[in-house]
């Protein structure tokens, strides 16, 4: 697993290196992730919950596009928690939140 917080090489391939287009896609990533993350927050329930897994699946997918492997891995773990306690879901939700915050900070700090 790539230990770097992100890898934009795939977006660069999609856009032929167009910096403005890459920034547009990063903006869409933020919107997509934020939306699914809000869904995840609302599904921290006890027991079976497919909606939790669906939200985690969306987060996992979005993270993949910016090469955020560590974040993607966390989301994959969350996706597999079809049956779990609210406490367990809250714990991984917080881990994802922390990893996402680090990712956003790193993306903001990069030189474009």
């Amino acid at each position: 697993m790539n230990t770097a917080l992100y890898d934009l090489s795939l977006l660069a391939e999609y856009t032929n290196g167009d910096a403005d287009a890459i920034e547009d896609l990063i903006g869409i990533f933020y919107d997509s992730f934020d939306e699914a993350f809000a869904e995840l927050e609302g599904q921290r329930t006890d027991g079976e919950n497919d909606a939790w897994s669906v939200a985690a699946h969306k987060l996992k997918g979005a993270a993949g596009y910016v090469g955020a492997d560590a974040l993607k891995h966390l989301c994959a773990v969350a996706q597999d928690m079809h049956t779990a306690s609210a406490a367990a879901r809250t714990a991984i939700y917080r881990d994802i939140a922390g990893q996402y915050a680090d990712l956003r900070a790193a993306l903001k700090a990069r030189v474009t």
Partner: protein
Amino acid sequence: MILGEKKNDTQLMALLPSMKKFMNEWQVVNINIAENSPLLQTEIIQRLLQHYHHYEGLIYPVSPSKIVMLARFGILHNYAVMKTEIEQKLPQHCCRILLRKLSAMAMKQVQIDISARDDSLINCQNMYTQRAMRRENVLLVADDERMARATMATLLGACGTVIDVENGTQVLSSYVRHNPDIVFLDIHMPGKSGLDLIQDIITVDPDAFIVVLSADSMKDNVLKALEDGAAGFLSKPPQPKKVQDYIGQCITVR
């Protein structure tokens, strides 16, 4: 394997008992030829008869640019492998092959092909023919994830007009309306699963070029997609080169 003729369904009728009894072992192979060439068509048919003579089935030309082979290949575990094997036995760079399990709808299409009159075929502008004659390329992206739609639109934009839908219930109507050269189809969508949509699309267009695009690349999903008639499967996020490879395989894309 026998060579069939249009307006002669007696050969098909003779095979029906076997098809009904061994439905899971029968497959439909659609061979779309890039050019209208009777010589090329003849060569393809001869090669198929030669290579698959010991299999039960029927080969018949539907039009100058399309051949259908109905074959009892047995229970296949990897349609992509079988498709590649058939392609290797044909003249190079001229055909696009779709291979899928025989279904009730596919059987109906075969019966229509064989019993249709020549003049009705001449007048019938089916979806594949319309795409082949059209100057512009049209690509359909069906995915509920905005990031997936945006990246595919960026990648495909130079290739042609990109249409996107985000709900499974919109896919079929959009397909019929826009008649895309290729459809990139996500599995998990609200309204209807991409895997279920494959058969819906092929029912209205047996020559549909469908590439399933999903972060969920479980082996069972991949096999089902290929069995039902998808041309391929890409894991998300897709590598641009692999997307371009599929575009290159689509005969109607200019």
